[in-house]
Structures are given as structure tokens and as C-alpha cells.
């Protein structure tokens, strides 16, 4: 669930509140948004994907929001990971983050071969 909005990074653009599929945030003028309906968070990470400031941290636990701090989130090395590895914004066109989703079919085929030769 959404655990942290990093005020030091947030640019008050309101994008997370706008795009959240389950309407978890309340946007505020000239201030970071507020997590107004935490229990509605579906842990889909899309707010992070749309946050160009990498100011959001969604915990993997979909039942409980842990009290992650800015320092803890930074230490995890995962702030902005989803946006970067999806090749969005400034990472658009970066070969390190190329979209290889199309390989899914061949991955399943490899797994079938492995299972057969088990």
C-alpha cells in the first residue's frame, strides 16, 4: 500500500491524485497530496510510475501500510525503480530499460521445455 509521500521531492503536480485508479489521494494546492483513503489503495504502483519526482513509495504489502521513512525508502534503492525500468520520461529510449515484454511467450516455452526434461 502507499506508505510515503516525500514532501522534499513532491512538486505538487497532482498527477498521482489525478490518475489513481482507486482515488486514494486528495490533491492539495501548493502542497503534497494527502493519503485520504489508504484502505482503497490496490497496490498497483501506477502512482509511482506517473510520479516524475519519484516522491512516492508503495509498499509491497497490500494489507498493511508500514511506516517507511524517506531514509528507509532511499536505503531500499527502489525509489523511482518502476518508472526507470519502464523506460518512462527521461529514460525513454534508454537501451538498458528497453521493453522486452514480447519475450513472455518464449519464456513460457522455455519453462515448458525445462519441465519436460525435468
Amino acid at each position: 500500500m502507499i506508505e510515503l509521500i516525500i514532501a522534499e521531492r513532491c512538486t505538487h503536480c497532482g498527477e498521482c491524485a489525478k490518475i489513481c485508479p482507486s482515488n486514494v489521494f486528495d490533491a492539495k494546492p501548493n502542497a503534497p497530496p494527502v493519503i485520504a483513503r489508504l484502505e482503497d489503495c490496490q497496490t498497483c504502483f501506477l502512482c509511482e510510475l506517473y510520479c516524475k519526482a519519484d516522491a512516492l513509495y508503495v509498499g509491497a504489502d497490500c494489507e498493511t501500510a508500514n511506516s517507511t521513512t524517506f531514509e528507509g525508502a532511499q536505503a531500499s534503492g527502489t525509489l523511482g525503480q518502476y518508472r526507470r525500468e519502464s523506460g518512462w520520461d527521461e529514460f525513454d529510449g534508454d537501451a538498458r530499460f528497453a521493453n522486452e515484454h514480447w519475450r513472455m511467450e518464449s519464456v513460457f516455452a522455455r519453462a515448458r521445455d525445462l519441465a519436460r526434461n525435468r
Partner: protein
Amino acid sequence: MANAAGDDLEADVLIIGGGVAGTWAAIAAAREGASVILADKGYCGASGVAATAGPGHWWVPPDQRAQAIERRLATCGGLGDRDWMARILDLTWRTLPTLAPYYRFPKDENGVTQFRALRGPEYLRAMRMIVIDHGVTILDQSPALELLRRADGSIVGARGRQRQRHSAWSVRAGAVVLATGGYAFKSRLLGGQTNTGDGHLMAAEAGAEMSGLEFSNFYSIAPARTSMTRSMSYAFARYFDADGRELDIPPGPDNTRDLGRALLQGPLFCRLDRMPEDIRARLSRISPNVPLTFDRLGVDPFKDRFEVTLTAEGTVRGAGGLRILGEDCATNVEGLFAAGDVATRELVAGAMSGGGAVNSSWALSSGQWAGRGAARLAKQLGRRADAPTQAIGEVGLRPKERARDLDPRDIIRQAQKEMLPCDKNLFRFGPTLSASLSRLDRLWEDLRNGLACSGDRAIAAREAAAIVATSRWTYAAALGRDESRGMHVREDTPDEKDGYARRLNVGGLDKIWTKFEADCFSEAAQ
């Protein structure tokens, strides 16, 4: 034009739901010259299960299709339809390349463009842009609450709430396309928390019939207490019990019942050490949100054993939904069309899951057919905006008796107790289903008599009503089909029965009915 303000709107066509099917419906209707409004419960572009996943498609070159269809029909339990399969194969093949100006299709090592599988967030972001470029008006964060009906029974719009402006909206339209997705009981399925069956409930209130809701018990593996129901990596899984003993469970994807049985014994753990090194290195480029989840958990899935669970997917990766009566995806209610996962996918998936490829092809195809069908009907009949209408929502909006203090969250928790556990929904027994259905019927009666919410609170009330309604239809259908077929396995009648290769229709609100169709509408698998 996006995000129009204004409370009482008019259009030729109203689309309810802005995922894959809804956006394709909007585009197809606009291409027929219709003015179109699309209302999404969340944000068109991020809403729906496809936006969080990576929809593959049923992508088969023309010369291989006859064979692909025969293979698919053989898995359908006699409920698939050859002609509909051919139609979605053809339209998928013609449609995906048209996304190229909006979606950057990658090339493989040989320079061949890969159209088959799309990343969800980028696909839906592209769809939003195309919808806007077709002049469609998008109402974001605008759940529909109920349909509007004319005296002749035809559907001519809907009304709902804009949940960020806390205001009411209504749209009068010549025809309505429901594209609200499958239902999954708020099970924490990735991207599925808004898939509460709102469209099914609204349609049933208009008298729509449903089909195949017994095929609604698909479960997906996920790390315990996470939403990450993306299953590709588990094709390389080993499984262990709480004491670290390896269990004799085959790798995925066809091991759900083994996993279910293990989970009924106790906690279940998994390790992905069979995944080859080169695939591990590529995992974030294939599905970036999968390694993200492991990283946030602090788990190395290739070395560590991590706890896993099964998450109910209801009809999302199931097959049932609103009954489709014609090639334009019309329902049995005049003016009401259905597209994507809210519609039955038995036509193309039969009794098996259409998860992944087939459902994605169905969504983009049925969306276009429903959008075009709605536009043509609207053109033929006109908007009829001056005719008097009635808002026909019942449970949660207009109680039979005096409103009582019922908490929608508590109602949902009670329904989940019947629908999420494997020993009730995956492993189905007649007596267990009957007992669950009785409890759900009593819950419905409480809602029916006393749940009434207004303003924004009506949204949660209608979600609760829809979850209880879809739960009841699910178990009524599971009881009605007292045999086993496809994903619907009745432990008390484990075999297919002769004469049951027919679709099972279900409907009704206070009193639920089920009825087998006489025949499927073209010959089934021979």
C-alpha cells in the same frame, strides 16, 4: 476533449468503463460519426486490470488460424464458437498494428516488430490519447451508479458521481456500452479493486441476462499479502511447506488445484531457482513491476523461499458475463451493449479461462463491435433526449424499507468469506455452495431492505451491492451446473455429464433464476 465539467450531458453514445474494451468502444463509436462520452470509475488510462499487467493477444497469422481455432475449441468444453474465434483473430491482427503511432512496438533480434504482447501502462496511456484524438469526452473518476430507462424498456443513459468534485452527473444517450470489466470481489487481484461487478448489477436491474458465471473461479498465484498476481515467473517455481520440505507440485501454469490443496494444509512457500540466469537478468525488462515487488519485500526469489497465496480472479480471468445476442455485442436489453470482461467470453474461451491472450483479443474486438453497434443504433433511433426516463438503480440507493446503518465494508467482508476461500470456490461441493448461497441471500435481503446511501457514499454502497449480487449469481450458476466442465469443477460430480455442453444463463435480483440454453449458436467442438 477530456475532463469536461458539467452535470447533465448528452451524447449519441455513452461508454461506461475506460479500460481496453471501453476505449476501443469509444473509438469505434466515434469513427461511426457518433458523439461519445466515456465515463471511467477511476482514470481512463490507468484503470482496469490490463493497465497494471501486460496483455498478450491471440495473435495468429491467417494461414495458421484454422488450426489454432480447432486447438482452442478442443479445450472449450463444447461451449466455444468457431465463428466468433475467427472474428477476434481477424480483428486482433488488423487492429494492433494501427496503434503504432501511439505505442512503440519493440523489434526482436532479427528486426521483426513484435505486436503480440503490450505493456499495460503504455497500452492504456496510448488508448487514452487515441480516444481524446477522436473527440471523445472523458469523465474521469466518475463511477456510474445506475442506468436510465425509457418507458419502453430501452436504456438511454446513466447517472453517477464525480468522486473528486463530489458532484452528480448524468448522461442521456441514444445507446450505452457497458465495459466495466469482470468482477473479482475486491480480492487484491492486481488492478482489480474497482472490478466490483457494478456493470453486471446495473445491467441486471435493466433485465439483462448473464451466462457462464459458473466459470468464475480462476485463481492466480502471488507472493503472500501482495497484489502481484503476475504468474509468468512461477513457470520456474519449486514449492515447499512451512518446514522447508519440497512438495510434489509441478511448475505452473496448470497447477492451481495442487496449490489450492497445499494451501489448505498450511502456509506454502516458493522459490524460483529454476529460472535460467538469462531470464532473471531480463525480468525487469519483461515485467518491471514483478522484480519491484520482490525488491520491496526484501526477497531474492531465486535464493529465498517466500510465502505465496492464491488470489481469486472471479470472472476477470474467468469466462462468464453478460449474455451477448448478436455480432454487435448487443445484450437482450434494447440500447445496452457489452464489451470486454463484463460480457461472457464463453464464445471465444468456452468453459476455460480466457486469461491472457484470448480475453485481450476479445476486449479489443468486442469493444469495437459494441461501440459501432451502439453508434448505429443511436443514429437509427436518435438521442430521444426529451423522452421521460427513470433511474432504475435499486439496492444501495432506494431501499424497500427504512434505511438502516449498514457498513458497505462489513458487507463486502461477509461476501468475501464465501467467495475467496479455496475450499468454497475453487473446490466446489453442492452442499457448501448451497450454504454459502443461503448466507449471501440473507445478506442481499438486508441490503435490499435497508442499505441507502447518497452523495459519494453511494459509490461504496453500490460496490457492496454489486459484490453480493455477483457472488449470488456465481454460486447459483455453480449449483445449476451440477457437473464438472472446464474450470468449474464440482468435487461432488467430478465428470462432464451428457447433454450439458450448453451455456447456462443466470439473472434476477431478489429471485435468481438459472436456465440452460437450448443450443450454442453455432456448432461447438466436434
